[in-house]
């Protein structure tokens, strides 16, 4: 099994966790500060499970820390959606909602993986992500169906991120291979159930589902937006400057 497969799921969780952490101390209310930190913590935990497995499969002596701190942007294989900058609270909510919904479907598929370790990690992560989804969907609806200002900002956020959601449903050769041997799933299969749920939530939120069909892609293959490099620079600077640093 190629290390890159679990690495993709690990990088999604890792990059989103790092993004969410930047809200700590800046969230609109105390409860949201706590919530965003807790969601980030869960995602870091999930990333550790995926990255440890990837490191073992790769068998080049790289553990979860080496994979986190000593890879450059080109070697990260997260989808573009999660690396997007935090923006305002509506941007962060839209990003989390689109991801949480996709992750709950994707992890659901992976719980049936023929690879025991992948199925176990997915089972564990799925319970957490479902809880995250309840929160991000609540906020999407509350802000969409809120004041004229919150509605406008939630709509703008959803419109702005929409072109990064298509990548979630585009398979490549590795996806095909993993789907064929029962380890993974074909991403295309998740598009309809995802869209259906998005339509339900947007309707409850009095928001309009963006109409665009053009999509940005490349993250899974290591071709990222400019935003990821800046994020990694901040995340990786300490262990790179002081490789022997210990808590």
């Amino acid at each position, binding site marked *: 099994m190629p290390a890159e497969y679990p690495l993709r799921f690990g990088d999604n969780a890792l990059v989103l966790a790092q993004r969410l952490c930047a809200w700590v101390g800046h969230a609109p209310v105390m*409860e949201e500060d*706590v*919530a965003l*930190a*807790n*969601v*980030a*913590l*869960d*995602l*870091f*935990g*999930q990333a*550790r*499970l995926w990255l440890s497995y990837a490191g073992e499969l790769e068998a080049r002596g790289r553990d979860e820390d080496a994979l986190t701190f000593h890879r450059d942007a080109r070697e990260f294989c997260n989808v573009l959606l999660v690396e997007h900058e935090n923006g305002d609270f509506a941007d962060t909510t839209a990003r989390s909602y689109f991801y949480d919904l996709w992750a709950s479907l994707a992890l659901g598929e992976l719980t049936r993986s023929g690879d*025991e370790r992948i*199925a*176990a*990690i997915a*089972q*564990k*992560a799925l*319970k*957490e992500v479902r*809880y995250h989804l*309840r*929160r991000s969907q609540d906020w999407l609806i509350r802000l969409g169906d809120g004041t004229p200002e919150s509605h406008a900002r939630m709509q703008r956020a959803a419109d702005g991120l929409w072109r990064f959601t298509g990548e979630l449903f585009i398979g490549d050769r590795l996806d095909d291979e993993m789907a064929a041997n029962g380890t993974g799933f074909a991403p295309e299969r998740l598009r309809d159930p995802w869209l259906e749920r998005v339509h339900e939530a947007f309707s409850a939120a009095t928001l309009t589902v963006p109409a665009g069909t053009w999509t940005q892609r490349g993250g899974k293959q290591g071709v990222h937006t400019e935003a990821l490099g800046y994020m990694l620079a901040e995340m990786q600077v300490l262990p790179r400057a002081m490789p022997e640093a210990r808590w």
Partner: protein
Amino acid sequence: MYRILDDVPDPEMPFVSITDLGIVRDVRLDGDTVVVALTPTYSGCPATQVIQGDVVRTLREHGAKDVRVGVRIAPPWSTDWITERGHERLRAAGIAPPAPHARCPRCGSGSVRELSRFGATPCKALYRCNACDEPFEYVKPF
């Protein structure tokens, strides 16, 4: 050996032990080595590593020659694994144990409202009692 682990407290909720929480899945002897399997509550819970260290130290203090602690993630931890004693101890500490509907640990009222889905630890949410107006933490069913 299992009874010895009854004395290992959860680092963030020291009034309950790790066996109360149901995270000790297996304890057995492999030659001179005690092999312990733990299941983390939430994958990012920072207490997990502290608990691993505490388990090793406690078993060594009780004469174990060698201790090996492994993490078992499947099946995933559930609040259903918290023991009856765990429930009692949580309640006594003013924390509502997991239930289909949260009840106020102070006055017992079932009329409560959620203030925040997340709390001071990954396993808890923040609630307030409508009857006695007291805020309280609730170990959310998971």
